[in-house]
């Protein structure tokens, strides 16, 4: 016997059907029917954020940490437009976020109604898919499609726009009447032939200086074991890209480090000397390759990648293998001959340079991060923001737990860490989560402390405070004649800010204070904040200047400018 439901009630039922039990959102006029229905579904937990951008980042953080789709909800107009940065972040990093927006009633669309925006038009280029629901009968098929599209193949964000009157429309609904989702062959398994894998195995056997380069795709496909097996069987050193960090244990003898603009010298030198690079689940981003004309000049590239449009997009490849990273890597691993790379390891060892940091104070990024690591333990997830601290967090923290490093890589979204960490907490409620930001990025979304307090979310926040937008300042120092234009940035008193929110706050100015502050923050049952007052003009080294190749890093402080 069919029951009569409103579109809003049906939406809640469908979210449950899709396995959703959590969403991050913010109510408003055009989404009110949904919020009216929500209390009838206590199994759907709603976290009220302080800004819709944060809702999208929280859904993204949840998705990255759990591997399940993250859901965010916003009203029409400004609510929907505030999601945009979060959706673009998810799109660039292939994160399965489902955004639900209210829209003005159908009869008002196109009349510049109050809080009307064409959010479908706005989000088309920054989502994997966006869809408008024009009648309640479209809701079930389109919502199921949306979840399937977000989570299958290369994941990505999907936006569903639902006019207010469609949320109120009645529909006769019979549970279980759910035809299979048709994706029109877009996401079918990709049977890469055995011939191509054999060719890859042959190239690996022939190579003298092979490298494995591991990206986010390995985490998304949970190809950890397959990659480990391939590396160990072939003795090939492993490089992890920014989003590939924590896909391969850093304590492993084969792990080299991060490549690219701020990659260690020996990692980039290894790339420049390699005769074979096996890239798994990455897009050879410009921050990884430097100037592509001089990238890995001696290497042939085998590219294992789910998205066929990535193969050959940024760098020419000798062999492209399209498919699931776990499946292809384990099949390749079975085919390759066991081998050693002793001479190559020795050669790479010779590329290693002593770490050159420009650090003058005693409170070093390395000291802070090892303090956080020692106190928080290996279960901890580190969510970083964007800028200098992001590079320190990527390079100086030993990631040995799978998927324990989460950051905005492709879009480089400042303000990501704090809200994303909220999402990560819900995916890993029993494990510590640190949101590490600079003083710039923290101030972009620090309003979310209120969300943590209201929802009792024990995220620990670390702020690397140097009084500058540090990465931009570094570029100004190196490439713009030290003209520090608009980069000095004032901060409030973070300890008193914490106090105002009713949470624990600590200021660390000396290395000896790190351990106690971190331990007390961690022991506190609620959210807590630790400000680290660091050297103002510290730089991230090495650095490949924009436009240069990986062979030409800046390894130490440039000479001071001659006085005029």
């Amino acid at each position, binding site marked *: 016997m069919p029951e009569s439901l409103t579109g809003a009630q049906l939406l809640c039922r469908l979210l449950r059907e899709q396995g959703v039990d959590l969403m991050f959102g913010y109510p408003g006029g055009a989404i009110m029917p949904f919020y009216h229905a929500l209390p009838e579904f206590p199994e759907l937990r709603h976290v009220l954020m302080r800004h819709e951008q944060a809702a999208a980042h929280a859904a993204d953080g949840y998705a990255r940490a759990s591997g399940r789709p993250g859901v965010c909800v916003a009203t029409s107009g400004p609510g929907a437009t505030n999601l945009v940065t979060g959706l673009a972040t998810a799109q660039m990093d292939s994160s399965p976020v489902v955004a639900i927006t209210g829209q003005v009633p159908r009869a008002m669309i196109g009349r510049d109604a109050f809080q009307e925006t064409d959010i*479908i*038009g706005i989000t*088309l*280029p920054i989502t*994997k*898919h*966006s*869809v*408008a629901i024009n009648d309640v009968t479209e809701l079930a098929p389109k919502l199921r499609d949306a979840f399937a*599209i977000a989570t299958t193949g290369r994941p990505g964000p999907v936006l569903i726009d639902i006019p207010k009157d469609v949320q109120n429309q009645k529909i006769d609904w019979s549970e279980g009447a759910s035809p299979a989702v048709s994706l*029109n*062959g*877009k996401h*079918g*398994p*990709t*049977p*890469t*032939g055995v*011939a*191509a894998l054999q*060719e890859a195995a042959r190239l690996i056997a022939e190579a003298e200086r092979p490298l494995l380069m591991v990206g986010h795709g390995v985490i998304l496909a949970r190809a950890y074991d397959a990659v480990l097996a391939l590396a160990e069987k072939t003795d090939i050193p492993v490089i992890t890209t920014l989003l590939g960090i924590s896909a391969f244990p850093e304590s492993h003898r084969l792990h080299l480090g991060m490549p690219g603009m701020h990659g260690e010298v020996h990692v980039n030198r290894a790339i420049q000397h390699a005769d074979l690079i096996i890239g798994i689940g990455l897009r050879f981003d410009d921050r990884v390759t430097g100037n592509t004309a001089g990238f890995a000049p001696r290497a*042939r590239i085998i590219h294992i990648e789910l*998205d*066929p*449009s990535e*193969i*050959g*997009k940024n760098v*020419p*490849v*000798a*062999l*492209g*293998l*399209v498919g699931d990273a776990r499946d292809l890597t384990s099949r390749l691993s079975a085919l390759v001959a066991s081998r050693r790379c002793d001479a190559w390891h020795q050669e790479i060892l010779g590329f290693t340079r002593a770490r050159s940091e420009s650090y003058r104070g005693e409170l070093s990024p390395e000291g802070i991060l090892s303090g956080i690591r020692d106190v928080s333990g290996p279960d901890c997830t580190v969510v970083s923001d964007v800028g200098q601290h992001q590079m320190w967090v990527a390079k100086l923290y030993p990631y040995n737990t799978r998927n324990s490093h989460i950051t905005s890589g492709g879009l480089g979204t400042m303000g990501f860490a704090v809200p994303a960490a909220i999402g990560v907490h819900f995916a890993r409620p029993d494990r510590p989560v640190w949101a590490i930001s600079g003083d710039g990025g923290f101030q972009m979304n620090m309003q979310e402390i209120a969300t943590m307090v209201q929802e009792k979310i024990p995220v620990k926040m670390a702020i690397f405070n140097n009084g500058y937008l540090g990465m931009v300042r570094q570029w100004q120092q190196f490439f713009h004649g030290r003209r520090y234009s608009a980069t000095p940035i004032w901060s409030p008193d973070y300890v008193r800010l914490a106090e105002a929110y009713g949470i624990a706050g600590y200021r660390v100015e000396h290395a000896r204070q790190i351990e106690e502050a971190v331990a007390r923050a961690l022991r506190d049952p609620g959210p807590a904040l630790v400000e680290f007052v660091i050297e103002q003009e510290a730089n991230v080294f090495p650095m490949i200047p924009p436009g240069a190749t990986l062979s030409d890093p800046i390894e130490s402080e440039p000479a001071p400018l001659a006085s005029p």
Partner: protein
Amino acid sequence: MTSSAAYSICVGLEDEFLAFNRLVGVVRRRNLAIESLSIGSGQEAGVARVTIVVRADEGAVDRLVRQLRKVIGVRGAAAEPEASVACRELALIRVRTTGRYAEVLDTAGRFGATVLEESRDEALLEVTGPGPMVLSLIRALEPFGVIDVARSGIVAVSRPGTTSAGFETRSISDVESERYQSVLTLRDD
């Protein structure tokens, strides 16, 4: 670096405005030189046929086609160099005939254009042909006074006897797995 040439890209599109919007977005943000873009029906009911004529190097065209195949709502996409497709465009041209009717008709006749309608001082011509020919007719009519022109944009199909049968309708995975088998030899130096 290959030099740029004209390619016809045929796309099968599920009959949906949004899908067309997405397709245009993918083309637009690549900053390619679009010479023509048309949308109409193809062989299969409910699947629109889009023809994009673009001048670009082979790599850029290949990347565009692969990005287009990813778009939800795109059934298939394929690019063909100009020489392997037959291209036609239709144009309707309103032209002044005052005192020069015979000359206008003669000019039209040389391009195979026909008179659809006429009034005392005007004729409405219809012409079908390759894009450059259509343009030549318009130029030739300009001295008489062209009042209005509507061009359909180019539609293209691969020539009889060629292996390609329009845009790829097979699943993406079939196409890609075949493609990358062939990439095997690409840099095998």
